[in-house]
């Protein structure tokens, strides 16, 4: 690890961390990227784990989607990981790579955003922890400094969570829209969406509405229409903005209905 960080601070922008390579290698092959020096993290021991530590889940940067898929800690995370690419991609692609790519369509990133993940970064000057809400800056841009790498990702236990994605086919599909919802143990509900803005985004107004109104059917309907208004999708050759907006509302409504149904047996979700 020290060696990797040393290399990086020496090479600066000329050195690129390589995890599973499913974004990087494709980018190089297509001529979108040119890489002078690879810093292959696969040789660094102890970076590939998914570990429950009391009320938290600690995830190593090289944990693959296949590993995340098998974790029952947060259903939204496992469900998101399950929709990434196909089996080969899930066996190679990693959580840090998904965050590092900072695609607005990063499925695992969307789930982590709803789960309020904290991202531990380590650099030559020490470590720091960045809340995921501050992590994404724009398409392909994050708060990782040029001499830093993602050391760990942590999420807290939640009451329930779920993820849905609409793609152009059933697997190996880039999200046209994806969404994750989380019910915290204090009853607050978080909503994140992918492919409807320059980065994965949180639906703050819808969340605020639910904080007051709970998960009653009318509240869910209202939250879905707030989501439609707050997303900022674009038209491209994959789908129109209008359609993405509409589907955002549909996915969020379905997810919230799922949360409401699973929280039924208990009394109102307010803490």
């Amino acid at each position, binding site marked *: 690890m020290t060696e990797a960080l040393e290399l990086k601070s020496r090479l600066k922008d000329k050195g690129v961390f390589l995890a599973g390579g499913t974004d990087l290698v494709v980018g190089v092959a297509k001529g979108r990227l040119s890489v002078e020096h690879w810093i292959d993290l696969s040789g660094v021991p102890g970076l590939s784990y998914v570990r429950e530590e009391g009320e938290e889940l600690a995830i190593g940067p090289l944990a693959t989607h296949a590993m995340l898929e098998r974790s029952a800690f947060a259903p939204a995370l496992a469900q998101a990981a399950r929709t990434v690419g196909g089996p080969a991609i899930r066996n190679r692609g990693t959580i840090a790579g998904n965050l590092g790519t900072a695609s607005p369509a990063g499925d695992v990133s969307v789930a982590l955003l709803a789960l309020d993940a904290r991202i531990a970064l380590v650099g030559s000057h020490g470590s720091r922890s960045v809340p995921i809400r501050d992590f994404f800056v724009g398409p392909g841009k994050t708060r990782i400094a040029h001499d830093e790498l993602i050391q760990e990702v942590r999420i807290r236990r939640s009451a329930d969570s779920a993820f849905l994605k609409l793609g152009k086919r059933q697997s*190996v599909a880039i999200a046209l829209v994806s969404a994750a919802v989380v019910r915290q143990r204090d009853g607050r509900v978080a909503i994140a969406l992918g492919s409807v803005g320059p980065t994965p985004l949180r639906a703050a107004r819808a969340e605020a509405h639910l904080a007051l109104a709970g998960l009653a059917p009318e509240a869910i309907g209202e939250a879905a229409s707030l989501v439609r208004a707050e997303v900022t999708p674009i038209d491209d050759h994959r789908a129109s903005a209008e359609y993405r907006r509409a589907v955002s509302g549909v996915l969020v409504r379905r997810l919230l209905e799922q949360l409401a149904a699973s929280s039924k047996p208990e009394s109102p979700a307010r803490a």
Partner: protein
Amino acid sequence: MSDIRVSEAAPTSGAPVGRSATRSDARDKVTGKTAYGGDRAVSQECLHAHVLRAAHPHAIVRRIETGPALADPDVVAVFTGKDVPGTNLHGMIRRDQELLATSRVRYCGDAVALVVARTRQAAERASKLVVVDYEPLPGVFTIAEALAPDAAAIHPEGNILGRQRIRKGDALAAMAEADVVVETEFSTQSVDHAFLDTEAGVAYLEGEVLTIEAAGQWVHEEARLLALALGLPFERVRIIQPPTGGAFGGREDLGIQLYLGLAALLTGQRVELAYSRAESMIARHKRHPIHIRYRFGARRDGTLVAAVVEVQADEGAYASTGKAVLRKAASHATGPYRVPNVHVDVTGVFTNNNPTGAMRGFGASQIAIAYEGAMDKLAAALGMDRVELRRRNLLLPGDAVTTSQILPVVSAQECMSAALERIGWEGRSYETPAPHLKRGYGLSVVCFGLGYGDGFPDASRARVRFTDGDRLEVYTGAVEVGQGLVQMAAQVAAQAVGVTIDRVDVILADTARTPEAGSSSATRQTFFTGSAVRKAGVELRHQLLDIVGTLLPVHPDELDLADDACFERADPTRRVPLSAILQEGRRRGYPLEAEAIFEPRTICQDDAGQSVRAFVTYLFASHAAEVLVDVETGEVQVQRIVAVHDLGKAINPLAAEGQIEGGVVQGIGMALMEEVVRQRGRLLNPNFTDYIVPTAMDVPEIIPVILENPDPIGPFGARGVGEPPLIGTPPAILGAIHDAIGVQIGQTPATAERVWRALQQAPGR
């Protein structure tokens, strides 16, 4: 056929024909051993070529400067159209495309220069240094733009490639008198063949002979066209087909062979060339996007009285096989239905898009979407059951298709009944797991004329011979592109001669070693090459029986040959093994080889689109589909597809089922997701990230059903299977969506967004 003599063994159980034997090429393909064109290219030291493609979809080429590229020390040569020794022209039907453009480019895939270098990287790098001085011209990218009075002319004669029509009875008058008239419109998309291995191969000189190893679909015709383009006599060109990962019509037009050939001819050295997926998609022709306006007129009882069909097709920049596609769309315009009055107008229009040409279905696939969509609409308008309406109008034995040809086998009704039964149509349930999901069922019945048809010369020749090691060799110029031809030929030969399948070796597609067999396209090779192999095999069988006649005091009629032995029918224990027969034959000077040609005739459609024999034979098929539609997102999930095909005889049932399943999957792609997207002639999705083909997860349960009403001409009653499995699939799926949501989707692919939009716009919402 009358010219096949007596004593041919009809296939019985356990016989070579009808057996689901494992394909001889399966193991190597599955284990990755097979060396495809691109694998061969890297096996030896050679030069590397790269094609520079047009920077504009429509432009005049003023000047090409190769100097800067030649300055690269790794570059061996840079060729332009001026360097091409022959006509520099190619095209399957009309030679209208330059190998390297000298004065004009008409789409983004046009080639302007060919760089040959010591490494692939250098060839690619140097191609960017070639300076082409273009004068961009206004382009036309839609049919409407191409037909506008002030449209830029893409070819000297204008923007219309051709028209095809059918005038049968008086359709306009009959339509006016019909009790009920329905009209529907469909637009189909640009579809890519998306085969596994992109174009790749090698070329070299063997003495005077220019030899090219690259995959096509018809090696002999490719050699002829290449000889013309490069100015060589035919005998100085040799084409060898390497193992091939699919073709689907996409390898019918020449392309890579020309560049390989030119580079090897002019440098005198071994050269390799391989297209990237992007280049493959940008350069290659596509399936015709067409717009169809379809009207059916019927009596109140559902009997069809007239069809009026207008079709406009985007031909793209060059003719390719477009005219034949248009003719096929016209001749199949009413599918398997009996319609006394038919009026069809098909127009093909040049644009600055990819040329359009052959792809599995060949015009018949697009038109099937329209006639089945119109049937569903008619049923709704009449308040009649969809099945009942079809039953009333499907062809019966003795009926003629739209072109007036009377068919010996008409199994449309039988196919439909089988499809309905297998999907459980009567007891079908519309229950769904959630209110936003709607279930629907669709049905299609299609017919398809196989072979080139329309009087086009269509023949296959095959040779069979015994080697000194007692192996049976089959020589055919036909190409194996994954469809299973190699196994078909082996099983037919084994059956015809009377040997075991394992004894047969099939030698394919090499213009220097194998006889002309026509193309692997048009669902024709089982019928054509299967027949040629069978004829040659029967000839050889008679040699064997004659030899046995010299050994046993028995009349040949009382003898039979099977499983590597000749035996008496009355007493099969009295037998002579094959090795003894061959030994005796050699001693007596028998050739122990035979060659045969199969060349059934067809007659071109007249001005009214009529011909008593436009195609050698027709296949019938029926598909039933079950889908779930999410009415909030528009997403469609296919749940089940039943695909019933009357193959006449399945030479290898397992392989035939595989072809049916593959065709269904490709049909799902066309129905729901595949679409080449262009913006003013430039492809926006020349890659498999954005050109979406079905994955294993998108493939539902497919139930293939094979019917075997024997064909009177085909080998052992076989017709073929190639294209119909695709053709029947999109109309069944679209019909199922219509059934589920009550709205007909008029544009393919029926993506989630299109279905959603159609629901938003539907009346009553």
